[in-house]
């Protein structure tokens, strides 16, 4: 799937939803709970279809990254599945917060 910045993606295995913050230039396979994610604003699964190898869970408001692919997403709805790209688990981005300016 070709991702673009600002796009909303939904899980097919649980309630996870994301938006793309940084997109790779090429085609990538982004999965949640072990299954490909689709364009959408709300997760479509009830958790029963999660592959046991992808059951770490997603947390609301966290950013997940894969530096190799150049991918960053923001979790807008949490779920029980975990995220991976080309089989590699995405990592939680350690925030270096800016001072609040407004």
């Amino acid at each position, binding site marked *: 799937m070709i991702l673009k910045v600002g796009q909303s993606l939904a899980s097919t295995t649980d309630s996870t939803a994301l938006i793309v913050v940084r997109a790779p230039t090429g085609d990538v396979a982004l999965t949640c709970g072990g299954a490909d994610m689709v364009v959408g604003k709300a997760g479509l699964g009830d958790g029963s279809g999660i592959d046991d190898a992808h059951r770490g869970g997603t947390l609301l*408001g966290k950013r997940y990254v894969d530096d190799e692919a150049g991918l960053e997403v923001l979790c807008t709805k949490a779920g029980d599945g975990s995220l991976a790209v080309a089989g590699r688990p995405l990592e939680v981005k350690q925030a270096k*917060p*800016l001072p609040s*300016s*407004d």
Partner: protein
Amino acid sequence: MNLTMLLDMAIDGFSDRVVIGRREGGITAARLGEMSAAGAAAIRESGADSVVYLAVNGPAFPVAMFAAARAGVPLVPVNYRLGAEQLESLLANHPRAIGIADEAQVPILERAGLTVLTPAQWLARASEPVAAVPDAEETEAPAVVIYTSGTTSAPKGVLLRHDNLTSYVFGSVEFASAEPTDAALISVPPYHIAAVANAITSLYSGRRTLVLERFTPAQWLQLAREEDISNALVVPTMLARIVDADGDKALPSLRSLAYGGAPMPTSVIEKALRMWPEVGFVNAYGLTETSSTVAVLGPEDHRAALASSEPAVRARLGSVGRVVPGVDLEIRDANDAAVGPGVTGTICVRGEQVSAEYAGIGRAVDDRGFFNTRDQGFVDEDGYLYIGGRMDDTIIRGAENIAPAEIEDVILRHPAVLDTAVVGVPDEEWGQRIEAAVVVRPGMVLDPEELRAHVRNVLRGSKTPERIVYWDELPRTETGKLVRRHVLDRIVADDVAV
């Protein structure tokens, strides 16, 4: 992506937290969701294509913003201090709007053909029960339209898209990062980009906001203490008045004080830093067109600058800091070529948060997506940005380009000077000649010749004002921005009178 998504995340993340108003009786995230839905229903029923907000800041403002977002129409916060003529020409751009206006402004909106509610009526309408909270409308309409202050030309409507504002939030704020006890005191008016950005970023970070509708230093200090304010946002003129105020200035719970919107005199920020050594000061630079902040000078930068004896580090108190993630910044020369560190030119920026889009005009960006801010400045070797004034303010005396900010900085260093503005007055011989309006500190006396000598010692003869006039105050907008064309008009009028 719609702004409503940020509100939905807040409801998911901390639904019971009070996010607007006083600790007791304020609006929780869940309540804001319901109010935005009821408000959106009211907007849809009225058939309005926009929401004009012509009132002081208060809870009605964020409710209006998220209701408009949910209804898929733009919020148009308008300056309630505009004259009737300016207001009428601006309202003519929004004939199908619904209005939210303070009592005194209701007639002018009604004359323009709008349905009008007062903030109290609006909040009552938004408190009506709703069956369900519907999804936001998918929309091509902008989220917010803000009119430029028109300090240099006629006001233009800047279109801020949902994508601009959400990019800004995702780029600079961590979700739910505020402590449950945090509270921000906001004293900027709702038609200022900082107020718009604050309403969104505070909610996203989970920080309660409290508004001071009409600023006085005493009330600001009192409210900050009463409500245990942890974060505050002021414009430089407000900070100057707070540090000069009489009475108790202890603010034990204050952790962060952000300022911006106009240049901060070094004397004021130094005094503030010494007054509240525990507080983290944040200077932000941004424009309406850039969805607020594009550069930030943080607390550690402030402390390091104050403590340093090294001139380059010390000077950073006059810097707006470094560019934020997600924004590219270039300084360009007169031929539009990028220049290196230390060279002054025009500040150009690009990024998802940069709208640079005007109603009826379109996007003002170049082939590479850069927006020319028309602000002048330079970046030092360590990446700190310094603002040197507006390109449009440049005085051309003979063939020499002179930035008024350079001369103003020197005049402000004189201990008897409280405020100043330097302008170029039409001159037959030079094209323009330099004149200065100066506000002298109360109780002090200053000979204009002494002040001219002070400037000449630092700069040179060609940059020394030929005439200095003393005024009681300078024409500034409510947010502290100098209205140079009014300075020029009055100086020229004075010239004729003399």
